[in-house]
């Protein structure tokens, strides 16, 4: 596999379909101008090629992170709202969010594309990650709505 091969990102409607299948609820999507920085994004995951080189990153704002994590296992919206107020996901939602990140590898993968796997999740403070994000040639930012949870903004980049 060539590490210079461009990684694709799924379209906004496909993003909605994947997330809708994941949480078992309709997810409305609205394409936004691509996020050039990780500012205002609460949590980020990185994805690597099989040789360990960084391939892609996926970030969420706090409200959508809490909402998706809660919706995954039918946690009441109030629990997500508590985490948003506290500006920190409670452990159960953190665990659920990890599974969201795991499945989000689908945003960068297809049957014929090189294998991409989840490598790391955390807060978007690392300088190398910020550089990776800023220089990514392929990017997508989408606003999600999935009542009764609070929606928000997700952003993806790929090299």
């Amino acid at each position: 596999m060539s590490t210079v091969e461009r990684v694709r990102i799924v379209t906004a409607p496909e993003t909605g379909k994947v997330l809708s299948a994941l949480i078992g609820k309709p997810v409305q999507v609205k394409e936004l101008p691509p996020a050039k920085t990780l500012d205002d994004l609460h949590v980020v995951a990185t994805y690597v090629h099989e040789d360990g080189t960084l391939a892609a990153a996926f970030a969420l704002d706090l409200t959508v992170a809490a909402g998706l994590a809660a919706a995954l296992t039918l946690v009441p919206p109030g629990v997500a709202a508590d985490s948003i107020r506290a500006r920190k996901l409670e452990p159960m939602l953190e665990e659920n969010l990890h599974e969201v990140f795991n499945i989000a590898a689908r945003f960068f993968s297809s049957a014929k594309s090189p294998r991409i796997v989840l490598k790391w999740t955390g807060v978007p403070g690392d300088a190398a990650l910020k550089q990776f994000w800023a220089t990514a040639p392929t990017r997508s930012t989408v606003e999600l709505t999935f009542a009764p949870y609070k929606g928000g903004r997700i952003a993806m980049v790929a090299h």
Partner: protein
Amino acid sequence: MKKILIVDDSKAMRMIVSRSLRQAGFGESTLIEASDGASALEIIRAEQPDVVLSDWNMPNMLGIDLLRAVRAEGCKVKFGFVTSEVSEATKQMAREAGAAFLLSKPFTADDIKTAMKTIA
């Protein structure tokens, strides 16, 4: 399908697979769970499930290594993967090791019903 073993390191995903199985008409089946391949192997030996639904990427033992270990012991349990892996290479590896299907996450209850029909 009397007894179905769900193997996934994610508690959330085990819950989702269980829920989907019930929605797909397997509410009468006994659903048992394991959080990694190594403990799943012990459960398969002890409980002899009718079907194993396993994740691919797990700590201690990958799903594919679990399947190979099971077959190496001569066990013919029906085995399917439920995984975020979608590449053709992965699907081929699963088939060659003796998996009946590879269901990609995320999935719907209809998807799991269709997959389970292939081993009914």
